[in-house]
């Protein structure tokens, strides 16, 4: 049950890739069980009770011992994380939650900004299975297309879109989604990014009758299903809990 306990991990790298967007690599030692693409970790300072709660992050890349996340500084917790230097220690718990289904189908990845986080691990896994995915990656500027070089190595095709046109196509990813699905005979779409992007993408993807799975974000208390804090409204009634039912959910199951 090591997934139900925090372990200490040493910071190997904590690099600002674009303004406010960081790439953290830790050495988790031998205490972390193997992760699957799409799973998440809870991260907290090694000591102290303020901030009280841990922060959940999608696993960006994983190998035994080595765990990576991408994060954006949005408040005090991530601000403290950004100040950690190589050699310092943090606490983490994971892998947690349900990840992506990695069966071999024609897969399209749709990422918005820092939402690209879970896709490197997923793309590499698919690539190793001989099933390189297609990638549609949008951001405000070319600087925010973080980790695109690393990611595109594992993708059959990479289309980048920036709102200011500084790289690739100009506009929003959703304007290029229709073509990406039709051209490549896509059988399944995975998405991660801002909610307006996901919502717009869902309409387009649904009209093609293609399944759409999304990796979502919500404030979490415990990460292990006991506090019921990370509620996401179900399409019919009641709530899903992101830490146990997700963080990857069928977009049609969610009330948007």
């Amino acid at each position, binding site marked *: 049950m090591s997934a*139900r*306990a925090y372990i200490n991990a040493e910071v190997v790298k904590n690099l600002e890739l674009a303004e406010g967007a960081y790439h953290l690599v830790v050495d988790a030692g031998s205490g972390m069980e193997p992760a699957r693409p799409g799973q998440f970790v809870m991260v907290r300072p090694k000591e102290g*009770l303020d901030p009280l709660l*841990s922060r959940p992050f999608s696993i960006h890349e994983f190998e035994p011992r080595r765990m990576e996340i991408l994060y954006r500084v949005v408040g005090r917790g991530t601000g403290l994380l950004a100040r950690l230097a190589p050699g310092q220690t943090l606490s983490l718990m994971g892998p947690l939650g349900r990840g992506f289904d990695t069966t071999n189908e024609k897969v399209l990845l749709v990422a918005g900004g820092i939402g690209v986080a879970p896709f490197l691990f997923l793309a590499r896994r698919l690539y190793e299975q001989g099933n390189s995915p297609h990638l549609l990656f949008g951001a405000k500027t070319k600087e925010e297309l973080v980790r695109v070089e690393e990611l595109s190595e594992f993708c059959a095709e990479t289309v980048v879109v920036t709102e200011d046109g500084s790289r690739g196509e100009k506009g929003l990813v959703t304007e290029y989604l229709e073509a990406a699905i039709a051209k490549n005979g896509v059988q399944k779409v995975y998405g991660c990014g801002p909610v307006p992007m996901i919502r717009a993408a869902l309409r387009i993807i649904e009209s093609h009758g293609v399944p759409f799975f999304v990796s979502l974000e919500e404030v979490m208390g415990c990460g292990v299903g*006991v*506090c019921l*804090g990370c509620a996401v409204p179900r399409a019919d009634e009641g709530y899903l809990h992101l830490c146990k039912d997700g963080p990857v959910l069928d977009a049609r199951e969610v009330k948007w």
Partner: protein
Amino acid sequence: MVSLGVKIAGLSLKTPLMAASGTFGYGGELLLAVGAENLGAIIVKGISLLPREGNPPPRLAETPCGLLNSIGLENVGVDRFIEEKLPFLRKHDVPVIVNILGDTANEYRDLAERLGSVDGIAGLEVNIGCPNVEAGGMSFGTAPAASALVTEAVRSVWPGFLMVKLTPNVTDITEIARAVEAAGADCLSLINTVRGMAVNVDTRKPRLKNVIGGLSGPAIKPIALRMVYETWRAVKIPVVGVGGITSALDALEFLIAGASAVQVGTANLVRPTAIREIAQGLRDYLASRDIPDINDLVGSLIL
């Protein structure tokens, strides 16, 4: 060898550490992380007669050393609890205390009756912090008469261990405590969460969808400790301390101030192994001071 065992109103606990309701799920998720030998009792997530789906998100907001929540009493309902959750809990050598909640005194009574018909439940904890639907929605626990009414309703059908959880959102908690004691409670647990609020100054929206929530965590510990102390002096039945306990030192403060046992709540969310670590900290404290028995500390406050 030091002893952490305590006995409260006839219920024997291996340690004075109970897992507080709503922070340990239905036991399965965290029991293995803590170890049955460290756990005095599990108080399961509050159960109502019918399932409740809970409040819309956001349900959580972090504050300095604190957590505001408005989960909204989401639970699977008593029938699913008995069918799906209780069998797992029964398998472990840890007393199971069921936290119950309702909209009316009759609902509390019906719940207690239903739970009385099955094996494997060591006791009940009555959450009287719920809105009293028949009296305009004001919390049962804020009025002595309504608190007593619910306690009597449960007592009339439940002869076993009966703990009543008091809300701190009152002017004088000892008045409620005495009313609940007179109505037949075996012991009191306190405090429930403190009503609170937080605002996002960028959006000017409340940080909880429900606007107001309950504050827990280290931020409320001094309030809880004060109320435990006041209540311990005001009643004859045992008091169980709850509120912001995250370390052995916190637990010791409560025991010294009069608590016969304590509940660990939000700390379980912060670290699933919290109770294991606190139990070890208590053993170390006793051993290092040559105190053989944790009960020697209860109410040992020197004024």
